[in-house]
């Protein structure tokens, strides 16, 4: 993970270190932006209600300057406390990520996308970053004149690539056929920039959102980056460019991010923002290959063993690059690749 953090430093990002606790009030006011409603709370010594951070972004925004003329760039490596789907209780989840606040322009977006690909690339060569531009979708939905409930339903179905039900909903809600066609086409269209962008330009001539995708993705020029409009996660949080990262071997997306100007407006900020988070806990299976053995060598000594000779023998094995456990008897739970006996002044033999 350290090489990832180093990458952020290379790009001039500074680390943002925070406390595990935050005033509960912050989350009450911004409940909409939290992934889960469940928060661990406690009363501190002065009687104030505190929470174990369920989220990092809100705390960083709260403490950042509201400067719309430049961009402040920070990264973090923090634990958050959430109830994850399907689990019966709270989990401590390690998140690594970065945030940019201020005058977020296309260069800034490009840099964040590039760092997202570098983050994924540091984990595995076999990665994919799905990028969407929510502006394209929400502009069409705004013109469709549907209720918020239907709008959310449409977005949910787009997120599932569920074309059959999307078609049914659009027909049922009497969405103008031309708009419906575009929404269906966007759901069906995904893949690399070379194929998808021309298709989008034909579908939505002169569309600024499509032009922005062209500009960013061709400048980024990474074949592992794809366009996919099923990236609609958390529309009340994100707007504009949004993305999800996948690595082969992990069942769910391990990285997600995007622009969240709406949230900044809600927090009465003038500046814009973009960021992403990597869910480190999800990478466990990938990063820790299960080894068959706990140690390479278990070196068992008897009572009359010469101490300095014993240490020398163990160190010689370690110098060989092996892990060496020195004991009088092998603990039950330990599996050693090789068990050796040390007698007297240095007779080593396999047990």
């Amino acid at each position: 993970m350290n090489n990832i953090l180093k990458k952020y430093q290379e790009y001039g990002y500074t680390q943002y270190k925070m406390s595990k606790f935050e005033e509960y009030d912050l989350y009450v006011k911004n409940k909409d932006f939290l992934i889960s409603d469940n928060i661990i709370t406690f009363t501190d010594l002065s009687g104030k209600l505190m929470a174990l951070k369920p989220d990092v972004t809100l705390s960083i925004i709260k403490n950042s300057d509201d400067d719309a003329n430049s961009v402040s760039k920070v990264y973090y490596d923090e634990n958050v406390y959430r109830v994850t789907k399907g689990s019966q209780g709270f989990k401590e989840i390690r998140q690594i990520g970065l945030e940019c606040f201020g005058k977020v322009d296309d260069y800034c977006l490009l840099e964040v996308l590039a760092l997202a690909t570098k983050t994924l690339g540091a984990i595995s060569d076999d990665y994919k970053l799905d990028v969407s531009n929510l502006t394209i979708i929400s502009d069409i939905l705004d013109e469709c004149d549907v209720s918020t409930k239907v709008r959310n339903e449409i977005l949910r179905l787009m997120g599932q690539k569920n074309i059959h039900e999307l078609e049914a909903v659009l027909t049922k809600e009497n969405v103008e056929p031309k708009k419906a066609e575009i929404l269906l086409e966007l759901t069906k269209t995904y893949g690399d920039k070379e194929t998808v962008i021309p298709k989008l330009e034909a579908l939505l001539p002169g569309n600024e959102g499509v032009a922005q995708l062209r500009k960013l993705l061709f400048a980024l020029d990474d074949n592992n980056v794809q366009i996919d409009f099923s990236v609609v996660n958390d529309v009340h949080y994100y707007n504009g460019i949004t993305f999800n990262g996948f690595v082969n071997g992990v069942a769910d997306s391990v990285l997600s991010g995007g622009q969240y100007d709406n949230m900044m407006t809600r927090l009465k900020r003038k500046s814009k923002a973009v960021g992403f988070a990597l869910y480190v806990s999800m990478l466990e299976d990938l990063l820790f290959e299960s080894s068959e053995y706990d140690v390479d060598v278990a070196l068992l000594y008897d009572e009359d063993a010469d101490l300095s000779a014993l240490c020398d023998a163990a160190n010689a094995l370690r110098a060989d690059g092996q892990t060496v456990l020195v004991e009088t008897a092998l603990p039950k739970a330990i599996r050693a690749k090789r068990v050796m006996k040390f007698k007297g002044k240095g007779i080593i033999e396999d047990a």
Partner: protein
Amino acid sequence: MLNVALPKGRLGEKVYAMFEAAGYPCPSIYEENRKLIFENEEAGVRYFWVKPSDVAIYVERGAADIGVAGKDILLEYEPDIYELLDLDIGKCKMAVAAPVGFRDNTQKTLRVATKFSNIAKAYYDSKGRDIDIIHLNGSIEIAPILKLSDVIVDIVETGTTLKENNLEVIEDVVPISARLIANKTSFKFKTEEIENIVRNLK
């Protein structure tokens, strides 16, 4: 190689027949034994039978790349997956049923017995009706007879079981059929293979 989770039982057999007809056969599946995993390297598929309600879990967690699950299961567990195709088989509906001649007294909380708590809650929430959910694991039909509940929310295929227990459908909740689902990561890395299956199944 694509890992395909199929629901054990009658529906699963129909689904397998569809896959076979679409060009993904695995003849060893017809052998009479207790094996649960069947592989055809040539066609690039590995099938396995799992409990119907578990298909979504296998797919969501990536143990299966794709699978076939009833819409009822997808609505109840809301797995984070792609729903790629309505296979148009295993058709039935989720409905509210009550004893024949039942009158809904809106002055009091409606007691609803069901296996599908999430679906029942979402349905009555959308109507703004206050309900008390009684989660049961089977024989839902007897709940209203024994006055355990006022109504039930359950899958209705032919309606025979309801009729035999003197119950009738009073509201339709949602139509149900079997859906082809895919794990999100698998879809990214095995796009072509999955797209081919979808195309051939259509």
